């Protein structure tokens, strides 16, 4: 075979060259040089510390009043018996003094502790189809979804079914500031997306709390579910065992040293499981509620990064190394050691 013949046969077998298959795509090869390392840590420090300080100051400006009332509102020794007695007078008056001026709208929350709305069985006990569509009446599917609160004793369906709706919180609060009563705006406390699409405007409560045990509050039969905002807020299950839910808003301002009187209807039974209840009044800001954590965290991380930047500066000065010097390859270093 002639040389040129074998060459043309070889080039006929050669695969088509492409940058992808030959792994020669153009690429940038970033490398951590001392400048990049120190620059990155310093940049993080310089950005994070001011953000942290701004968050801390925003959090300090928020005025938050928490009043835990479940212990003191029940004076009877048998707390559970008292709370389950439907004829007992459960009204309780609490006084809160306002330390700093509070600008409206002031958010009123109820806070529960040791209440696991994230319990697996509890969270699954609902039927979203039933909440939205009044014609959804598949009894087997509803019973499976809402077990154990799906039907009454004689088998008729409960609307809304499930443990979440059944355990609806039903303490009420009536506020007065300096003896003048203040209205709490209970409109638009639920998410608009829930009111419009998740809870039907033609679905009405049926047989609610008629399953044998009463787990919480009652619902107005005449209002459709899309307008039952307390229920909608309650059914958006909380993530953690200590949580708050929006009760309403006070639209007016409250001055410092004003005295707020809350008349609480202490209906909800948290005594059976060692839970606590509190009423919370809080002003609003871009950072949400009063929480120093985010500010402290930002300042801490920014500070640590600045310390790391300084530490690396010291290290680079004390132990410099020329980048890309072949003398540092392990076989060259061994040769240098041998030759000494």
């Amino acid at each position, binding site marked *: 075979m002639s040389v040129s013949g074998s060459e043309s046969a070889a080039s006929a077998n050669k695969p088509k060259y492409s940058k992808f298959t030959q792994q020669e795509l153009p*690429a940038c090869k970033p490398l951590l040089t001392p400048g990049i390392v120190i620059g990155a840590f310093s940049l993080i420090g310089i950005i994070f510390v001011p953000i942290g300080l701004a968050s801390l100051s925003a959090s300090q400006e928020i005025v938050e009043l928490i009043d835990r009332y479940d212990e003191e509102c029940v004076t009877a020794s048998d707390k559970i018996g008292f709370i389950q007695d439907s004829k007992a007078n459960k009204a309780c008056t609490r006084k809160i003094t306002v330390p700093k001026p509070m600008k409206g709208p002031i958010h009123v929350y109820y806070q529960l502790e040791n209440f696991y709305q994230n319990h697996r069985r509890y969270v699954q006990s609902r039927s979203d189809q039933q909440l939205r569509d009044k014609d959804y009446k598949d009894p087997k599917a509803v019973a499976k979804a809402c077990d154990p609160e799906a039907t009454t004793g004689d088998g008729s369906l409960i609307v809304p079914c499930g443990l979440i709706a059944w355990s609806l919180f039903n303490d009420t609060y009536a506020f007065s500031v300096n003896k003048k009563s203040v209205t709490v705006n209970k409109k638009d406390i639920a998410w608009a997306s829930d009111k419009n699409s998740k809870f039907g405007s033609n679905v009405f409560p049926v047989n609610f709390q008629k399953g044998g045990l009463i787990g919480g509050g009652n619902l107005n039969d005449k209002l459709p579910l899309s307008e039952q905002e307390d229920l909608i807020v309650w059914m958006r299950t909380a993530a953690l065992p200590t949580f708050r839910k929006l009760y309403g808003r006070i639209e007016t301002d409250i001055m410092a040293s004003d005295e707020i009187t809350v008349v609480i209807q202490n209906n909800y039974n948290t005594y059976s499981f060692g839970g606590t209840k509190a009423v919370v009044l809080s002003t609003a800001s871009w950072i949400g509620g009063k*929480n120093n954590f985010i500010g402290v965290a930002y300042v801490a991380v920014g500070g640590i990064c600045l310390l790391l930047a300084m530490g690396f500066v010291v290290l680079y000065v004390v132990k410099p190394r020329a980048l890309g010097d*072949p003398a540092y390859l392990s076989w060259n270093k061994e040769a240098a050691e041998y030759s000494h």
Partner: protein
Amino acid sequence: MTLAIGDGANDVSMIQMADVGVGINGQEGGQAVMASDFSMGQFRFLVPLLLVHGHWNYQRMGYMILYNFYKNATFVLVLFWYVLYTSFTLTTAITEWSSLLYTVLYTSLPTIVVGILDKDLSKSTLLAYPKLYGSGQRNEKYNLNLFVLNMLEALWQSLVVFYIPYFAYRQSTIGMSSLGDLWALASVIVVNMQLAMDIIRWNWIIHVFVWGTIAATVICLFVIDSIWVLPGYGAIYHIMGQGLFWLLLLIIVVTAMVPHFAIKAFSEHFVPSDIQIGREIEKFEALNQCVYGPFIC
């Protein structure tokens, strides 16, 4: 570990017994090729097979195995810490769809693409310094220390992803679906950032897949939260409208990455491996060849 290379029928039994058998397809026929793991046309191709492709394969496999354990451990540990706060019932705050899509979509494609395309040193460097092959023989890319370090990083990052939102939202009105969305998005971003920090060669395909996967995750979270039947309906829209969400996302990603970055910066500069020196030689070679002196060309 033995490699046997041969081209004739008498080499077949040797090729079969060796750990890696290489057959030459040539003048003595095709029996050696049929019995071998790798086949080539000439004996001299053995050099690039070992020094270039063998080295790349070792580095890619070692990193991908470590990374896959790490990314799944990070996600599962985030779910695990939540169990402590659900009265030990196994509720997952992250929606089941997101948990499924995590391995399938949110973190799979960058892994595959990096495993195929990334390389630590170029062909010419590896052929010029054959002793770089020793990195594989010394188990430098996959050993017990690296595995333990990986798992510790997974532990740290899962703690950061879980507890920073926990402390920020502890006594608030946050719902399970909203917090779950934050945890899911933060996990995905952290895990992909870890990969991004370790990628050595960024070509356009790797860029598309890494950043595209994060974008795809956000899109999926929006789609999942737009299905009215699911409990998380509307959650992502609600929580993304709050400034606190974005602040938390930023601090979670940075705090999770700081230890990895610091360890990487320290070990690459003060205890450099041969591979690291090789990378620097490649990058600064052009600078070192400047006519009038370093950096003055």
